[in-house]
């Protein structure tokens, strides 16, 4: 027997650089905000799932120990950049199966502890030990996509311009300053053809969600956001040729998510997708069938992925502008979708939003398109 699952509480702290704050002190305010948002007695929370990639041992216990929300099962989950979307998936599964009625999801990361530079990847990995860094992997996607489909530098830069414009309207975003195509292209090269402003900033942040069964949801809020699909998959390892211009794992996950939700891409009003680098967002337009193969550049240029377009992609500013404290990202994407579907998104409200989607992938290892991918579809 399964039950419907909803989000009744959402909270996050503004993303930014907070080197003086501990991981626990970054995250507990997001948890309290989510609890208050749900109007729930903290004692009703039966279990917690905490996603983080670099938080260290017992991150969830360290956070919840600050506010006395302990003595319940707390599970810490690492899945690189999809850590907290993975936590959300398992939280949803545990409620859907009837194990719990009310669970808490936390996403948290403190990247300033590394002092800047590229994300520290696992040196045991063959490619990483030989010089692979995340910007280079995406740079190769960009180069190959430009080679095959004629995408231009300007179109690529336009992703950053659009998402910075969206981020300007989001008080929780790390980068709240508009930019231009010229400025993006003139910023320093990181991994050619990607420049600095085409890479997500390093930062700190946390987000939290209260997930519950449909049975108890009306006890907390009259406007629960229903979860129509919760998909998690891993990449398929291959030692041979892979097409870097289409994300195998996201395409497969999207097909599963559409099937579970019983809707297709045309129904989606807004999508928070994993734009860790400019090229990624374009590739995901196609993976979610928002546009046809090879047409992402034109789709963006014609305004189909911003306010007033066919689907507003990354209204929050996305990873490029909102920021990407990696373990916090999946939960923060869900927070944005919930706020949009409730009509609480202020200046960046997607008018009449009814269906939202969130998508987080985690990578940085050899032989996979990405290591993990989690997709959620929500409805008001």
């Amino acid at each position, binding site marked *: 027997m399964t039950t419907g699952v909803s989000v009744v509480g959402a909270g996050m702290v503004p993303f930014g650089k907070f080197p003086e704050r501990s991981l626990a002190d970054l995250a507990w305010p997001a948890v309290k905000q989510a609890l208050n948002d749900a109007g729930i007695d903290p004692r009703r929370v039966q279990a917690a799932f905490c996603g983080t990639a670099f938080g260290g041992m017992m991150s969830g216990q360290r956070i919840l120990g600050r506010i006395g929300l302990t003595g319940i099962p707390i599970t810490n989950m690492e899945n690189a950049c999809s850590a907290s979307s993975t936590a959300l998936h398992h939280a949803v599964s545990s409620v859907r199966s009837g194990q719990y009625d009310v669970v808490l999801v936390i996403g948290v990361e403190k990247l300033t502890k590394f002092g800047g530079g590229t994300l520290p990847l696992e040196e045991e990995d063959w490619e990483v030990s*030989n010089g692979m860094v995340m910007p280079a992997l995406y740079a*190769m996607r960009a180069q190959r996509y430009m080679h095959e489909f004629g995408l231009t530098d300007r179109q690529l830069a336009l992703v950053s311009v659009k998402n910075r414009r969206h981020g300007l309207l989001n008080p929780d975003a790390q980068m709240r300053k508009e930019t231009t195509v010229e400025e993006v292209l003139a910023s320093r090269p990181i991994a050619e053809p990607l420049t600095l402003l085409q890479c997500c900033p390093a930062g700190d942040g946390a987000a939290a969600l209260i997930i519950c069964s449909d049975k108890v949801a009306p006890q907390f809020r009259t406007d629960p956001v229903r979860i129509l699909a919760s998909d998690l998959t891993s990449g398929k390892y291959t030692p041979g*040729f892979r097409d870097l211009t289409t994300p195998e794992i996201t395409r497969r996950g999207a097909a599963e998510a559409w099937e579970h939700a019983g809707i297709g891409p045309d129904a989606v009003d807004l999508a928070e997708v994993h734009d860790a680098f400019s090229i990624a967002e374009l590739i995901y337009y196609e993976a979610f069938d928002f546009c046809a193969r090879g047409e992402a550049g034109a789709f963006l240029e014609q305004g189909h992925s911003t306010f007033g377009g066919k689907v507003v992609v990354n209204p929050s500013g996305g990873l490029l502008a909102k920021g990407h404290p990696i373990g916090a990202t999946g939960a923060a994407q869900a927070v944005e979708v919930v706020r949009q579907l409730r009509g609480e998104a202020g200046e960046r409200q997607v008018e009449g939003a009814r269906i939202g989607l969130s998508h987080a992938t985690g990578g940085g290892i050899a032989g996979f398109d990405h290591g993990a991918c989690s997709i959620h579809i929500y409805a008001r």
Partner: protein
Amino acid sequence: MNPEMSPSSEVRLVGMHCTACGAMAYPFQAVCPICMAEDEVAEADMPTTGTVYAYSTVHAAPKKWRLPYTIGYVDLSNGVRVFSHLDPKGLGVGAAVYASTGIVSGEAVEEPRTQLVFKAVGDAK
């Protein structure tokens, strides 16, 4: 261009061949990543020429690397893809390249090691 880089005809690419399922991979590993076989897995020489699938010149990386450096994927005729450093000279998507060696790690490494670097065929001499 790094002066340490010099063409070499003695570079071998030792990969894996699984006689149980036919899979090949580079570098060698002792268990087949496709069918889990161990006893049927053997070292095998890979072709030392291939074509560039994609590459990037990197300007931000951990300290051990000498910046900038170029890395990418080289597709071999036997269907195996090799991740490697590349010499940027004469490089392009689809360029024919051959396996050579060079030193690409930086001053932070006490004993910089010679490692695999692919070079464009047109720049062999």
